[in-house]
């Protein structure tokens, strides 16, 4: 058996009103506490070099992308989001992708493609917003994936630093 001990209420507590006023004063004070709400679309989330957003293809300063359609990212992709059709080009690199699609609905933003790429052609951007009216529109082709180098500069520099650290520790 459980015996519930009721607290003996004082007269002031039984009359309700003083306690109600106390409660009201609390809620009134809370009205002026500064808010921490982020007005999202106007105030986007801050991103850092570590932010792994959607993968993008870097457009070099000469206007081309570095991809040679080797297919390593396609193989590394755990979600099978990448589809590449290779083709030839007159440029010194000899091969370039005719088609480079990433299905953004499949992509899990893991960054394996960035790690796998031997030509530093694909990087994780800080773009995180993904919304459209059809599934088809969310399969991004090369035109949608290309980003000028300066948009990705921060991430590229960060990845380079990580790679440098790896190189020095392996050489010693």
């Amino acid at each position: 058996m459980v015996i519930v001990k009721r607290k003996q209420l004082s007269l002031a507590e039984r009359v309700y009103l003083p306690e109600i006023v106390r409660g009201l004063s609390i809620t009134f004070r809370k009205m002026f506490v500064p808010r921490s709400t982020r007005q999202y679309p106007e105030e986007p989330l801050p991103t850092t070099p570590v932010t792994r957003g959607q993968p993008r293809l870097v457009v070099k300063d000469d206007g081309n992308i570095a991809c040679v359609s080797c297919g390593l990212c396609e193989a590394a992709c755990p979600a099978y989001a990448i589809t590449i059709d290779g083709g030839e080009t007159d440029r010194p690199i000899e091969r370039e992708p005719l088609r480079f699609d990433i299905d953004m609905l499949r992509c899990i933003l893991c960054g394996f493609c960035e790690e796998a790429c031997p030509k530093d052609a694909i990087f994780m951007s800080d773009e995180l917003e993904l919304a459209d009216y059809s599934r088809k529109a969310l399969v991004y082709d090369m035109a949608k994936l290309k980003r000028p180098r300066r948009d990705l500069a921060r991430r590229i520099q960060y990845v380079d630093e990580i790679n440098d650290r790896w190189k020095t520790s392996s050489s010693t």
Partner: protein
Amino acid sequence: MNGLVVSLVKAVVILGGLLTTAGLMSLAERKVSAWMQYRIGPNRVGPFGLLQPLADGIKFIFKEEVVPNGANRLLFRFAPAMAALPAMLTIAVIPFAGEIVLFGKSYGKLSIADIDVGILYLLAIGSMGIYGIILGGWASNSKYSLLGGLRASAQMISYELTLILSILAVIVLAGSLDLRRIVEVQANVTQWHVWRQPLAFVLFVIATFAETNRHPFDFAESEPELVGGFHTEYSALKFGLFFLGEYAAMTVMACLTTTLFLGGPSIPFFPDAPWVLGFLAFLAKTSCFLFLFLWVRWTLPRFRFDQLMRLGWKALLPLALLNLVLTGVLVSW
């Protein structure tokens, strides 16, 4: 003819003001609740979300109207109108300001109807608001609606006694049922009935919350127990009318509190103020009470139904009677 036009203009202005206030109150409710909960509240439609009531109204119009199976179709449609109507009728006798003087011409006092027994009219019509709720609850053919309607009617009848008894004390002091006369006897701050009838004031405010089915006495809705109470089955504009009726009733009650206890349009230490300032003073006082409605709602938990009945019959009613007797003795002395 001229008098008719003046009355019509007054009616349009006051009724429009009431509906606007009711709309703004629905926004204020959300804003105040947000502020008290560390949120910001609606701020997307118009500056500071001021057009939100308009957006809500448009949404209400375009929603599908659902009439449940087995509902009494006639009463189901009639109930929302019945809920919204009393508030719009009772606003007619509230004296908002003194003599209106425009360009040297007097247009009478700022109230739609000058009735000698204004307070009686207000209480009689105001009590009819309950029909909207109980008819809505009964016609819906839903157990939750019916329970909500029954609870609301039991509660409103219980608290109406306290409400009227506390008003009676004021009437005894003023010696008139005329709201204009009640305002006149409170011309000075020291004569305000809050100071002369503090107990009646407190009882009246508490009873007001129960009368308008507001938190902590909102048993008609009581969403954790009764889904939505009497308006569970209502949708679209019919629900909107219930919504509007609730806020309009609150507004009228706030106006009545101002009139009865805070001297209506009288301004402290400035008795000969022009009518515009008096009107603004009236609005300011009323806004304070409207804020109180919201403030209390977002602070207190809901009562239990037996607690509500006990409070009404065993605490408020004897206190109101005692107050009335004391007032009567003091006045006749």
